[in-house]
């Protein structure tokens, strides 16, 4: 009696696993995204650039004398704007980020310390230094 029961158990375990794997593997993929036009991209870059001073000011106020937290707050504002712009235009976040990245690379700074030509665009790295209390 035990052997048929064990075989039945094996079949159920394998069938259930196969069902789960199949459903995960065949879950509907997202529809192909709409691409941003060159004009859209220029618009994204300009909008982000125009808001950056405001974000930096807010971040400086919220996190006095804390370089990493200020930069992180800056990027928090930027993320909200990226979501907003992508949502309005119906394009993926990637398109907005590419537009910002192209804009920052467009008039590339010279390498090394000479890159200080455009310090206001926050393109340098601020080493991560998590606050000891996150909450």
């Amino acid at each position: 009696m035990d052997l048929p029961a064990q075989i039945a158990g094996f079949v159920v375990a394998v069938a259930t696993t196969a069902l789960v794997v199949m459903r995960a593997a065949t879950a509907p993929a997202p529809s192909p995204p709409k691409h941003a036009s060159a004009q859209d991209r220029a618009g994204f870059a300009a909008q982000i650039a125009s808001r950056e001073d405001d974000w930096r000011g807010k971040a400086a106020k919220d996190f006095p004398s804390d370089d990493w937290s200020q930069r992180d707050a800056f990027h928090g504002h930027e993320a909200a704007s990226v979501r907003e712009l992508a949502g309005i235009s119906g394009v993926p976040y990637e398109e907005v980020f590419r537009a910002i990245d192209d804009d920052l690379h467009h008039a590339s700074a010279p390498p090394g310390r000479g890159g200080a030509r455009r310090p206001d665009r926050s393109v340098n790295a601020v080493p991560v230094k998590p606050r000891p209390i996150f909450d």
Partner: protein
Amino acid sequence: MISRLARHVTLRLAFFCVLAAVFVWPILGQAAHINEFRDVHHLFLYERSAIDTIRRYGELPLWNPYYCGGFDAVGAPQTRFVSPTLLLGLLFGAERAEILTVFFFAVVGMEGMYRWLRLRVTEPLAALVVAPVFALSGQYAVAYHRGWVQFMGFELVPWILLGVTLAVRRKPSGIAIASIAFATMLGFAGFFAAPLVALAAIFESVRALAEEPRTARLRSMAMLLATASFMATVAMLRLWPVAETLLSAPRIMAGTPGHAPKALLAALVGVLAVKDGNTDVNGSFYVGAGFLALFALGMHHRSALPSVIIAMICGWLATGYASRISSFGMLRELPIFAAIRYPERFLWLGILFASAPVAGALARVPYIGEGRKWRVGTVVVLLAGVAWTVGGEIAAFHRVALARTMGVVTEGRVADFHQSRGNRWLAVHLESQNIGSLSCYETHRLAESTLLRGDLPAEEYLAPDAADAGTVKRLAWSPTKITLSVDVSRPARVLVNQNWAPGWHATVGKVVSHEGLLAVDMPAGAHEVALAFLPWSTLGGATVTLASLVALAWIGVRARRRGEIFSKRQLVGTTLLVVMPWVVAGVAYAASPDDRWPPPRMTNPNGSAAIVAEGDVHVATPIGAAFSLPLRVEEGRVTGPDEHQNLLVEVYFRRLASIPKATTMFVHLERRKEETPVPKDHEEFFNADHQVVGGSFYLSDTPQGALVRDAFGVHIDKAAPGTWDVWAAFGHVSGRKGRSLVTSPGAATASDHRVRIGTFVVH
């Protein structure tokens, strides 16, 4: 009959697979999407980049260039690809693999719980039905909602405890089970759970030893030591690189988190729901009131006492600093427990240990009364209680998993990898473009160069002092290997826009750290140079892991042939096999050709050095105040407020002898009393207490005798106009609490065990 069937592994697995399938079923439809919760953007990026590195470049994912300017991927405590689940990602892609990982871990967790419970519960049916309670409990739902998939590794804890008890019972299989489960858990990013596991293993060891006859305890102790040793050495592939990372950039946690018993009860029985995009403490460890009732029912039996005591200790630990006597606070004084952040996670262990009395209740209560009606009735009621519990857990998981904000990663990779300013809040959307994000977050500091830039015309270039020496051109790029054509008229340094780390090597020239940036010093001439990342920590760790597995297998063979492995006849051979991986580790460590990380930099949040040389203080006010704690405030300075209403406070102090970890600097900003009345909606007091200097080190870890500059900002929006004083004092945030006495104020004014370190005026 059902009890008899429960003994069959295939039937049990069938039951667990069906339950796990019900657990994940509604979420499977979203498998192609990603969770957009903030933490996902680094955790999922780690997994995605590892899979991409293997799939696209055919390389082991040893280096991750897509985040923070690049880091040792095996050495990062939160990467989870060093585990068998990587295969799921390779087969189905990172997105679809996530929910499959949850499914498989749930099954593994239930089976582990069953086996562990059966060590002490004789009734298979009781163990079978109680096993899912821990494996599907509310914290897994919370973790999944937040994208903390690595928390599924906690499902391996019952296996580790099973291994520990089997080892104490002198079964060699226990050593293998505990070691492999622990290594898998660490490979799956279980580092922040490891201290909890260590504690659980200690509880389990003590209990299991107490169950053994006195005459056998010595051999059981030897088995335990062998288990602990193999747990460390089998996991060395991961332990060594992560230890290197955390020693160079430690995780510092401060604060005094705590929960009242009522809040913990709400965590166990409350309704788990999503509010404002996140879950709160209610229901976060959901097992339901039915489970607690069954636990109460199971407490009455003497055999349940050890489990009940351990569960109670876990409950006490979960209260954190809210208890009058904080066991959690005491635990945090120990090195590996210092970085534990959430005391409530001890509830997880509490649930695990409480499952034994619950299973005991199910096994015994039907036999308390007499007659078939009583037995059938109680079995039905008790099973209904467990079914209600498990049903509630599954419903909670569905509720919060389906409340996630879902997104889509769009592939659109640029031909040449480059760093961008990036955005850690949405970083996955950059990795999918083959672009790195310099904006980053981790739970520990990272060695990140300040020279990294997100706007360079080329990612590899000559250092500024050799910019006119020739040219650098990228020939090929992959995450762990960069090939360059370098043509220079004189020796020159080539900089790469990624972080340096031990393990980078070059085929020509010498790899160096250029202010934290990856760089190679090239000789004059035209060269093709390949930079490759192959860290010794991973190679050495893998060798130790392999040696340990061989030793374990050998021990297994010897045990099969000759019986108990710590018998007099086998003692020497077994000891040699236990020690052998450590010898391999020692040799590997000594033979390392890689440079070592420099010691962590002690800095303030504004980037200034936190340890300064004598005489480096030029404009601060001398103080020279001494306290009953061995601390001395030498000087102070208050700058501001600036246009943002921010104040910069600098306190220069020394630690003269050892102090407890809980020592805190109390900083009070007070408006002078004689000023005019405080206008409505304005403040006359601000607090800037802190236990950690600049997020870098505890006050207790400051180098003894060194002059520390503790610089921090305070936002004083709505400060009432007038003259303000800044006061500093020392004391304890837990334990003894209270302020240290000012034994000598020096040149400062003292008040209420505080010294004034400066003043400022608000107009």
